[in-house]
């Protein structure tokens, strides 16, 4: 048997979902006992690749070779048995059970037909010693800090004798001290022969702890480099370097100087969310907000829209300070919000296109609570037609429409409330290229008619192609506001990864 120099090889991995090729001939080679960084922007395919490795997804084609032997991983159980563990970004322990039960669930030490509690405590204590965790195995998982929870997950991985541990954004909820402790634990894992696949967007950390870096972009793998030979700038450049083709309608309209919205030092009620955000939006402007997952952009706009609480700061619209405590207040003040996930918080799947279009603005067609049906239908048909929603009938369930048409219905819904500031959170997510162009055209039409748009987007080309100015956020803070002509992919990504 040939001893492979890699503990893990993923070769020519391809995975498609309807309408999108998530992984296109991706390769990843991890040496035993190394810390291997996996880098790429939102949607590059990192999570998908790891999910294929961990048995959550089935790859369409390609091979996975573990310790020189080819394997087909069809379930997470199998992955665990093969020595692969994953520590997800968001941990969901069983809160009201002891920590040790969380670790040994499904494989409790038994004494006859009963669980051997004493053995479990002993085994857990020994495990904790290995990862330098000093807590009582019997405390409830709910009482642990995020940092300790993570160490528990690592302990769990050790208990499975894992040779490969995947860590997804491990330091996103850790303090600096906790991060250094984590790095010590990772080093000791390495010494015991365990390899770590480290997914992160924190460049400094990557260069500090990782041996090699694999960079992905748009579902493709660009290659792997030793960390010692890379700089932050080079990594960023490769993450984003792509051809910007003509995917956007020509923008002639120049926004005015009038400030329609001024946000002053806005702080979220939740201390972990955005803090001290300030910016201005002009009339007729498309104000882009960029950043990576976790930047708290959605939380920011939801707070402006009255869905979340604001601890301090001012919202000044058209020169007047306003108080927004509910969605009703926001609507009254001329705001509209098309949310990030249309299936979760946008569309009413089983309801008709007609109902979906009119739900936010139905007061306009009602007198004393009774709906004037002909007025309602007329307005809905007109608005949907204006936005080119393709459907044979208004009574069709909206879930039967394509993603692009659904998104148009949502925009039509809000246009019926006559807003002057539309907040669009990832307006073209999950939509094909042709529909995207239509939405961009709609957006241009809206600003030409005097409305202003705040657009959150994780797609760099979209920000650069559509926004007049781009505000970049990182971990809840504004790291920079760029003008259209001074912004490029590298500068945006640099601001997006500028941790505290």
């Amino acid at each position, binding site marked *: 048997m040939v001893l492979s120099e890699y503990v893990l090889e993923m070769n020519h991995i391809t995975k498609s979902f309807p309408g999108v090729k998530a992984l296109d001939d991706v390769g990843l080679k991890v040496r035993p006992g190394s810390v291997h960084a996996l880098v790429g922007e939102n949607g590059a395919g990192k999570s998908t690749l790891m999910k294929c490795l961990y048995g959550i997804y*089935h790859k369409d084609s390609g091979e996975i070779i573990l310790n020189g032997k080819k394997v087909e991983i069809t379930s997470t159980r199998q992955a665990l048995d093969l020595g692969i563990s994953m520590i997800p970004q968001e941990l969901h322990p069983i809160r009201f059970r002891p920590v040790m039960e969380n670790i040994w669930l499904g494989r409790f030490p038994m004494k006859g037909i009963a669980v051997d509690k004493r053995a479990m405590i002993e085994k857990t204590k020994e495990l904790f010693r290995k990862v330098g965790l000093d807590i009582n195995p019997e405390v409830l998982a709910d009482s642990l800090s995020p940092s300790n929870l993570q160490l528990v997950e690592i302990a769990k991985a050790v208990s499975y004798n894992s040779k490969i541990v995947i860590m997804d954004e491990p330091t996103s909820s850790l303090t600096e001290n906790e991060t250094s402790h984590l790095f010590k634990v990772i080093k000791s894992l390495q010494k015991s022969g365990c390899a770590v696949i480290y997914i992160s967007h924190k460049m400094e950390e990557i260069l500090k702890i990782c041996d090699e870096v694999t960079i992905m972009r748009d579902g493709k793998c660009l290659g792997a480099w030793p960390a010692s030979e890379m700089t932050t700038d080079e990594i960023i450049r490769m993450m984003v370097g792509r051809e910007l083709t003509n995917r956007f309608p020509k923008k002639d309209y120049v926004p005015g100087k009038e400030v329609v919205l001024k946000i002053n030092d806005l702080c979220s009620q939740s201390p972990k969310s955005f803090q001290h955000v300030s910016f201005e939006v002009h009339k007729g402007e498309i104000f882009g907000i960029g950043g990576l997952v976790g930047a708290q952009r959605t939380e920011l706009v939801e707070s402006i829209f009255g869905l979340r609480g604001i601890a301090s700061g001012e919202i000044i619209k058209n020169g007047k300070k306003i108080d927004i405590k509910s969605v*009703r207040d926001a609507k009254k003040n001329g705001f509209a919000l098309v*949310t990030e996930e249309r299936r979760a918080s946008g569309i009413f*799947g089983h*309801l008709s296109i007609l109902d979906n279009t*009119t739900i936010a603005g139905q007061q306009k067609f009602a007198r004393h609570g009774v*709906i004037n049906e002909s007025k309602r239908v007329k307005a809905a048909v007109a608005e949907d037609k204006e936005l080119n929603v393709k459907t044979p009938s208004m*009574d069709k369930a909206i879930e039967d429409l394509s993603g692009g048409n659904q998104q148009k219905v949502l925009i039509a819904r809000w246009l019926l409330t006559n807003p002057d500031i539309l907040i669009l959170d990832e307006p073209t997510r999950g939509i094909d290229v042709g529909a995207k162009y239509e939405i961009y055209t709609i957006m241009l039409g809206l600003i030409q008619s005097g409305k202003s748009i705040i657009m959150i987007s994780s797609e760099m080309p979209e920000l650069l192609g559509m926004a007049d100015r781009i505000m970049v956020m990182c971990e809840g803070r504004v790291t920079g506001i760029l003008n259209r002509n001074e912004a490029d992919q590298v500068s945006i990504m640099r601001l997006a990864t500028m941790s505290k």
Partner: protein
Amino acid sequence: MRMEQAQKTMPRKKYANIFLITGVAVFVFGLLFGLLFYTKKVYDLPWYLCIVGACIAGYGVYQRNNTGKLGEEVCFSRQQSKAFFLKYALIFALFVMIVIIAIISPNFLQFDVCLDILSQSSIRLIIALGICPTILIAGTDLSAGRMVGLAAVISASMLQVPTYANRFFPNLPALPVFIPIIIAILVCGVFGMLNGLLVAKFNMHPFIATLATQVIIYGICSLYFDLPPNHSQPIGGIKNDFTIIAQKKIGGKVSILIPIAILVTVIMWFVLNKTVFGKNIYAIGGNMEAARVSGVNVFMTLIGIFALAGILYGFGGVLEAARTAGATNNYGEGYELDAIAACCVGGVSLAGGIGKISGIVIGVLIFTVIQYGLQFIGVSPMWQQVIKGVIIAVAVAVDLSKYKKVLWH
């Protein structure tokens, strides 16, 4: 991903005309049968044929008039046929049940039987209509039955004949009939608001909130019922001008409960389909988060739903007391389960957001027909329970299969 099967299509007008002509033919056949070839053996079958014919023709007319809305062409594919049968499965089931019972016992086809079934369905329908919005928001209301009992007891206790020996309030002056009725309904409305408050403000699951109020209401009702001088005696000696509300027969034949139920049905249909409140109910049931984002006042709508439910249960309770000319604290026990079952069978989805008034009407009718019809042909009541349970399971399974989604892998 989705394969386009070769589809047979037919212009909708032709499709509509087929039904129209068939319907008219059946109607005329029934008419001729009844007028010319009538034998007592078939009882009122000819007139039923006329009704069926009219319904078929009506479907044809509806298809004709709504060609614009429904599409110019009708597609015949396996998928479409399946959807069609699922949509009208309930009506088919009801139809089949009636046919079977009629074959076993032809005198089931008398018009009086039909009227009896309709009048027995009336109060149940009112309660089912009340509970429907609570199911539409993916909740439930277990306090329905006990509210019925409470309303029955309150209204009956204040509407007894002055000369009755065991009067609840011996010194109560003669009150106009509508006052105790309004009091009873309002009390239930207030308890309904309590339900709404528990769900909206404290985020309790409706199951728990209404379970708690159910028990509280039963307790309060029993305490009231036990007040001296009544001491838990069944309330009797009810005034005639109260009982007539439920017992009058229009033209000597048609129970007044039927038009009352029809009126409530029309009102609820209007509320659910033609008001902002109704649209908000469907929105909350369809996607509460999206409703919130759209600016729907979820808090007030939830309170409104449960308060309205309480009012309808109260009304049902008042009618029960009038119908039976009496009341005890045990009235209404278990009514909510029948109401929920009727809604489920009628296509109201337990997951929320889906349900139509027409389905509820049919759901209630199905259960009444089962009860009445099986009794009619001499089937033991125990069997009725089994059949009832089977129908609930099958109906809900059929309903859920409409919304089966394939999971990714």
